[in-house]
């Protein structure tokens, strides 16, 4: 709880500092020229740029930006929290559009000194967060009207999906990974819990924030009805079979009913323009597991 809130505070402070540092540059840039060489940092940010039809203005992306598939052909400037200043400058950008938490701060400090506008997009795991992400991106791109339209459409999608999903009496265990038989599960304040709540289900695990290793006994006590995990195309990745074979999971209602759902990670946890689709698919999967 503590370290999570402190992290949030740190991020908030960082974002505030960045905003204070760069707001001048941003204003200047939007007033004079429209940025046409943008680096998009963060998978959900990139998705929004594509949804706004502004992808022709992108010159690079980070490692986490892998949807839509076309984004993968852009040069990759590295992992979102480990960006290198020279790497970013080498693609000659005129704006950096970065999700909150991108860094390290040293890199952004150098870039700010070069006069490069850096726009920080707020993160969050609910519908208002999706809306503010879309607004932040569209304003930075100078297409606020299109952004408003997209935000309305996404809101309608998500609300429709929530309505269709209704409230389900299912508890779901989100398994992020299973290394050496140890289960890394989603606690509170995670994208996984956020999307589960939108789909009307509840997170089987409570008592901690973030993703953590949980003991077998905690899994048994949580007694999830469904196991949710991300799809992975890597060879040797954990399969639903592996998860069901786990002794603690096998003894839960989910294990007895073989109820494992797999979804694309970026779709499920991105909290971006496809969240409505994510909620519908998740709800449909949960309904199928229920019957």
């Amino acid at each position: 709880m503590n370290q999570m809130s402190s992290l949030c505070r740190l991020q908030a402070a960082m974002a505030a500092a960045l905003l204070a540092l760069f707001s001048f540059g941003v204003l200047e840039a939007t007033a004079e020229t429209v940025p046409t060489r943008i680096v998009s940092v963060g998978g959900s940010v990139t998705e929004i740029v594509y949804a706004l039809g502004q992808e022709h203005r992108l010159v690079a992306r980070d490692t986490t930006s892998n949807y839509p598939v076309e984004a993968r052909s852009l040069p990759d400037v590295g992992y979102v929290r480990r960006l290198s200043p020279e790497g970013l400058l080498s693609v000659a950008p005129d704006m950096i559009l970065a999700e909150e938490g991108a860094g390290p701060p040293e890199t952004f400090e150098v870039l700010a000194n070069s006069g490069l506008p850096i726009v920080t997009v707020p993160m969050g795991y609910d519908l208002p967060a999706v809306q503010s992400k879309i607004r932040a991106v569209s304003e930075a791109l100078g297409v606020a009207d299109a952004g408003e339209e997209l935000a309305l459409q996404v809101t309608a999608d998500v609300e429709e999906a929530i309505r269709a999903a209704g409230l389900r009496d299912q508890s779901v265990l989100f398994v992020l990974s299973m290394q050496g038989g140890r289960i890394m599960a989603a606690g509170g304040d995670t994208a996984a819990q956020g999307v589960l709540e939108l789909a009307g289900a509840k997170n089987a695990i409570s008592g901690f924030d973030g993703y953590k290793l949980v003991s077998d006994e905690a899994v048994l006590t949580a007694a999830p009805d469904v196991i949710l995990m991300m799809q992975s195309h890597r060879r040797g990745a954990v399969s639903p079979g592996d998860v069901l074979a786990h002794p603690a999971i096998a003894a839960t209602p989910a294990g007895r009913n073989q109820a494992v759902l797999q979804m694309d990670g970026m779709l499920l946890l991105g909290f971006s323009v496809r969240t409505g689709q994510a909620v519908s698919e998740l709800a449909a999967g949960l309904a199928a597991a229920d019957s």
Partner: protein
Amino acid sequence: MAATATDVMRRQVGDRTLKARRVTVVLLTLLLLVSVAGLAVGAAETSLWSSLVAWAQGEDLSLRDQIVLLHIRLPRLLTGLLAGAALATSGALLQGLFRNPLADPEIIGVSAGASFGAVCAIVLGAALPFAGKLGAAFLPVLAFAGAWGATLLLYRIATRHGRTSVATMLLAGIALSALTMALTGVLIYIADDAQMRDITFWNMGSLSGANWNKLVIAAPVIFVSLVAAQALGAGLNAMALGEAAARHMGVSVQVVKRLTIVCVAAATGVSVAISGGIGFVGIVVPHVLRLISGPDHKHLLVNSALLGACVLVSADIDARVIIAPAELPIGIITAILGGPFFLWILLRQRGVLDL
């Protein structure tokens, strides 16, 4: 008096002074080349030559070129030079002090301590006092405090009645490292996904965060430690014959020990604080030099500093261009390039390895 020890050593293993001096000259040349490359090579298209020509003709550089050359590549180069020299010299010092070919800063708790400090900063972050005031300097400061704290504690444990037992230090170092790593483990356990990533990347090291703010603090500390280290050559040569022998030769063994440990803790502590965990340089560089030009510390310490600087700057150049515009952690490069090279040298010269 200490020169006697050096004479004994030279008699035993042959006088390779001339060879060592030649190595120094070669390394200085190499250092110059590598430094120029460090300024000239990078992901950005900024050209060192055209910028220099423009500057010589009194033209103004573009803001972007200025940033790339003066605020990205130059501080990175200097950080690489200093950190490389510090790590390699620390390795040479400790291998001499412990008379153990496997000694490196890890053995006196520097690495585990620095890692603990860094992980504290990453995981507990803003919850700790001073975090807000220090801002981006928070992690380096905590890493240095961890390194320094662990070493001081170890020194206190191993020192009784004004005498430091090297054997106690070695063993207590293992125990202390285990303890520190367990504490780090507790923090890793409560860390979230993003923090875990930060920790992993920190442990692999990077010079990408180098800037003038860090250099202003780090450079004087490393520089003074490196200069002080050069004075330890004669003492360490005497210690190579055994502590008792060194004492009989009139070497103040305790002073040598204390100064060695202070130099290593300061130089490595600061290097690790600003560049993360970069392994391997401290072990490999001194050994390569011993194989080439013998174990005489008078030359070994200078040459280690030079070769260490060359190696780390070269590794950093690789780190920034191999997958540009993204960047590899430098620890990966030092291990991937250094490991096989070191094995090759060992296989070629089996039996020659001495201290």
